[in-house]
């Protein structure tokens, strides 16, 4: 194995050699990580190469960390541009209509993505929700199955929770041509629900 890896430095690298950087970064799956560990244990030349890689790994992080962070100008520019977006400018619409149109414009996947980006886990957080909750489910959602929605509803701690189903695909689009998109109905139901609880 030692002779083999030396030879491969001059010629084609071995599969294990190619994986060493990902092993250093800890991003290999368990099976590949085990293969690399075993190869490192029996091949000193490979271990030497791995030590060099560890150095590269640490200095790459050091180098990137030294680049600093963007100024607040970037954030101000971004949020000014978002404010100026015509689709989001709801003007003088009532709060319930603005909220419902905003959520109606988002797909469930977008909302799931928001949850993902904020590191929220419904399994952990739903029991702590005590405010009124409305859950709207699209009947043709192939990404979030009815049993998933049921579990989410059951996990919510609020005594005032309502679960409604709306015909539509996972983006709230129509399931068949000629049908209105599901998100219009979802928006209407949401506005109705908000109006009943927050009339002013």
């Amino acid at each position: 194995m030692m002779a083999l890896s030396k030879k491969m430095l001059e010629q084609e690298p071995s599969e294990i050699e190619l994986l060493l950087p990902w092993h250093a970064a800890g991003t290999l799956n368990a099976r590949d990580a085990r293969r690399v560990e075993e190869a490192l244990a029996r091949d000193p030349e490979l271990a030497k190469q791995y030590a060099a890689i560890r150095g590269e790994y640490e200095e790459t992080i050091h180098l990137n960390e030294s680049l600093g962070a963007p100024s607040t100008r970037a954030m101000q520019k971004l949020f000014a541009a978002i404010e100026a977006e015509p689709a989001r400018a709801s003007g003088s619409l009532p709060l319930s209509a603005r909220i419902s149109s905003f959520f109606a414009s988002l797909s469930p996947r977008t909302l799931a993505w928001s949850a993902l980006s904020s590191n929220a886990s419904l399994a952990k957080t739903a029991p702590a929700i005590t405010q009124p909750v409305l859950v709207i489910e699209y009947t043709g959602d192939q990404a979030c199955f009815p049993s998933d929605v049921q579990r989410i509803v059951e996990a919510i701690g609020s005594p005032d929770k309502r679960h409604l189903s709306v015909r539509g695909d996972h983006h709230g689009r129509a399931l068949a041509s000629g049908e209105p998109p599901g998100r219009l109905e979802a928006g209407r139901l949401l506005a109705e629900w908000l109006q009943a609880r927050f009339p002013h």
Partner: protein
Amino acid sequence: MQVLYGRHHVRVYRFGLRLVRDQQAAEDLISEVFLDVWRQAGKFEGRSAVSTWLLAITRFKALSALRRRKDFELDEDAANAIEDTSDDPETVVQKKDTSAALRGCLTGLSPEHREIVDLVYYHEKSVEEVAEIVGIPENTVKTRLFYARKKLAELLKAAGVERGWP
């Protein structure tokens, strides 16, 4: 959006800065990236991590910005200068410090090699994720990083730094 921005903007900025090599351009870049995300959130398929999606958008926009810069300048020398502002090996060796030399040589890699090193080591992207961000086959990802590391070893050797490999 604020949560998303707060969580990812520094890494997106650093990735962009390593590509465009200009602070102001990198700041403009991240504003464009997150504005695009705001506009196109519905297109996010959820097949990959949000950070992978963001880095792919950043890369695309950075390369477009570099192309625009080159088109504007119509000057190949200036374009080359953008890509190679690093210390040369002679300068690096003067630093007499292996870590500093290593960082200098990392900066001296070609944009293609620098990008893959950053994605794997700093952004901790898997082979599959790098393939998705850069738009190349997984095997090419592995060999490209190997040759980036060989190039790094050559630069270090030229700078008089001995690491025991190769």
